[in-house]
């Protein structure tokens, strides 16, 4: 067992766990966070995704002892009581069916837009390719990402925002 300090959603947390423990189980079972979920344990599906210093990271294969940097989980995406624009778009587009995978979809989309605020359709598909949804909500996910990208683009060009128009 080792005492390990993590920076999670703006707080400093210390846990006493085996150093090889995947970050996923520490977040879920020691820090009572519900956003990251077990899907495969193989870094294949993305359900366990967290952001570490803004990089979408598969927490199911990341030993907790190797983590340095700021961890953001789904619970930490909202800032100052305001939902992340992607979360709002997910609600506006009514994206989820069951919703189990949406943690990974949202956080991967956040990392994608941080790196490329106005992605093309092809770039969205490519950037999201590794995150699986077995309810197949992909079309809605892509619509929601485009909605945020369009809004952010519109704000740069001082165009009207929030007309509610759908693609």
């Amino acid at each position: 067992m080792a005492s390990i300090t993590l920076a999670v959603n703006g707080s400093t947390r210390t846990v006493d766990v085996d150093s090889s423990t995947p970050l996923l189980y520490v977040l879920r079972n020691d820090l009572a966070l519900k956003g990251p979920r077990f899907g495969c344990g193989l870094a294949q599906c993305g359900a366990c995704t967290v952001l570490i210093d803004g990089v979408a990271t598969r927490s199911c294969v990341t030993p907790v002892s190797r983590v340095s940097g700021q961890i953001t989980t789904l619970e930490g995406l909202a800032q100052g009581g305001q939902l992340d624009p992607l979360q709002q778009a997910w609600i506006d587009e009514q994206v989820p069916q069951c919703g189990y995978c949406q943690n990974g979809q949202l956080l991967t989309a956040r990392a994608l837009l941080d790196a490329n605020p106005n992605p093309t359709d092809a770039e969205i598909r490519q950037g999201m390719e590794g995150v699986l949804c077995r309810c197949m909500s992909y079309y809605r996910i892509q619509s929601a990402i485009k909605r945020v990208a369009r809004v952010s683009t519109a704000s740069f060009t001082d165009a009207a925002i929030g007309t509610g128009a759908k693609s």
Partner: protein
Amino acid sequence: MNNKFTAGLQLPPEVESAIHSINPATSRRGFLQASGALFISAGLSATLAGRVIAQATAGNSGPYPHPDFLQLDTWIVIHPDNTATFFVGKTDGGQGTGTAFRQMMCDELDIPYSSTRLVMGSTDTTPDQGGSGGSDGVEVDGWPMRYAAAEARRTLLELASGRLNTPVAGLSAENGKIAVTADPSRTITYADLIGGQRFDVMLDGRNINSTRGVADVKPVQDLRVIGQSIPRYDIPAKVDGSLTWAVDVKLPGMVHARNVRPPLAGASLQSVDEASVSSMPGFVSVVRESNYLAVLFEREEQAINGARALRAQWTPPAESPFPASKDLFDYIRSQNPTSSSQPDVTGDPDAAFASAARIVEADYDIPFQGHTAIGPAHALADPSDGQMTIYSNDMKSYGLRLGVARFLDMPEDRVRVVYMDGPQVYGRTAADDVGFEAAYLANKIGRPVRVQWMRDEETAWDTKGPAYAFTLRGALDATGNPTAIEYDARALDFNHVGYNDPDTVLIAQLMGRRPAQPGRGGAAKPSVQYGIANQRHTGHVVSLPMIWETPLRCGNLRDPNGPQVTFAFESFIDEMAAAANADPVEFRLNMLANSSEDNAFRKARSLATVRAAAEVYGWETRPSPNPQQRSASGASISSGRGIAYTYRSGTVVATIAEVEVNRDTGHIFVKRLVCAHDCGLVINPTGLQYTVECGMLHGLSRALWEEVQFDTEKVTSVDWATHPTMRHSDTPESIEVVIVNGDPNPDRPDLPHYGAGEASHKPMIAAIANAMFDATGVRLRRVPFRKERVLGALRGQLT
């Protein structure tokens, strides 16, 4: 207050909050406790508590009796703040049925949607509507909900009549209050009439589906909340991370378990070396019974490590449990069936074939396809105080409760299932192996036990949709009109598992428990609306060599046989159209026009739906294949479009797929989808649209990717590399859902609400196969259409 109804274990606060959506103070338990004083002082006897007392007298003293569906109070509680909670015995797999149920009940009760909440599928608080399955939630179970709400409204009007000293006929109900119609300043709220108290009204009904009170439901013209695209209430908490899912529940003293499955199908467990794990940190125990094996540890990662480290000796079975998946269809076609249905015969197909100008014949094959849920199966069972509480996303929670009670030989009223959100259900959690495992282990060690399956376990060992091999023959006359069709299906479905059956769930099989007879299984026949004069439809069930303890267990997968059967049938209809040199839409419309079957106006609605799909798509009338197969987007890309039509129960659907096929790589991209969908009265148009979309894409995934593969010893599809599924890049560029509500006949009565969870899933594989043929002139008769198979077909190789 500590009546029998509330004497059971309290739920953890976060669970109470999660299942009672927002406000624990208004929960059923809170309501009953708060209203207990009324019960005592008024001495009412025919209410919830009265029922419990009667049961206690009969010696049935468990804390979790069935809520009585004949009591209005079981369905609806009006709170002192003039809000209402609805209690329904259904579950929502993410299709928005919970929101739809609320809308239906709000409309009948005349209360604002925002003033209500809904509790679903928890066996001690909601009436047993069987949970979910068969897309019948809105279609069937919505009716008693509507009738109960209508009866509540009628009761409130009667109470108001006394309080306002006005006949009911002179009152009107709206937005949770009742006004004197002639003097709208005189009002009284529902809360003032009954807030926090019981209705104490009995309903009638031989069974829960026919439950109703005195009041009738509203005519369609008076519905106001139904028909609105109200956003799903469950989505915000799913995107901000605040929802407590079944997978999140934690209890003091709980331990984590992982199963250890036979490494080879049918292997027998000879010995277990407990010492191989007993010194590992957090070790609790190894549990073994016959071939069921599990490890329990204090922490989750410890259990995972322990399951991997445990040394066990397994003896392979004497005979191969199944042929390899590459040989599956030869196997199916060579076996003697375990059962065959009586053929459904119309007309004289033999004579029609004898006089046919042309006969078309084709075989189709579709493999085992799995659920492969994104979140592997999970449950938490709490054995405290001699009861058993299971936290689960079981879609048929009532069946899990009954099954576990039988499995553990416990009185049913000492077992409850608390239904919570979870990963996709689609039939998987109707045979909820993990709930039984958690309950068994918890009972065994006397501590709460949480079990979650691992990825390889889920993909290999979940229940499978049955594989099918089909042979179809069709006859055309000299003018190209279809005169006969013959359908012969072989389904590898013997020993299809039951719903939460304590003798057929996986743990029971591994422990050697067996029902008296294996399940017979079934081979489905197509949904035929076409007017073809001579028809013969036959189904046969075939068995694998090993039927127990096999990872190839058939269970229900989203419209359990529909996608397979419709793939074969609607592909074949397309082949007949091509043989007749007819346009595929025209060919279908002509057959529909010739139909004499118009149950639920299905003939007229089918014609309207096929026409709507073709019109929205911009369908060009011509035979397939496309004479201009090379598209502008690339020399090696061929484009085409295909249609498939079907119905499921009362719902009619026509889907058009547009594909681009890369002739160099064999890759199929489904570029555009149009679905015309008629499920009668629409409760929530946007919710319907998105469910239809996702149902289509689930079908797309099954068409292009999904196959459970195995060698002669074990399933080899064990993760997302060996069992690929649809990804973002497969998503069509455009999906259009056309909600058709009936035929153009203004004299027809209003349609009821039919189901929508599966109908759009059903024709998808056929639509893509038909589009592939249109694009290339090559017919795909074996699912899935992965690029190697497509490339082989394009090069004229057998697939």
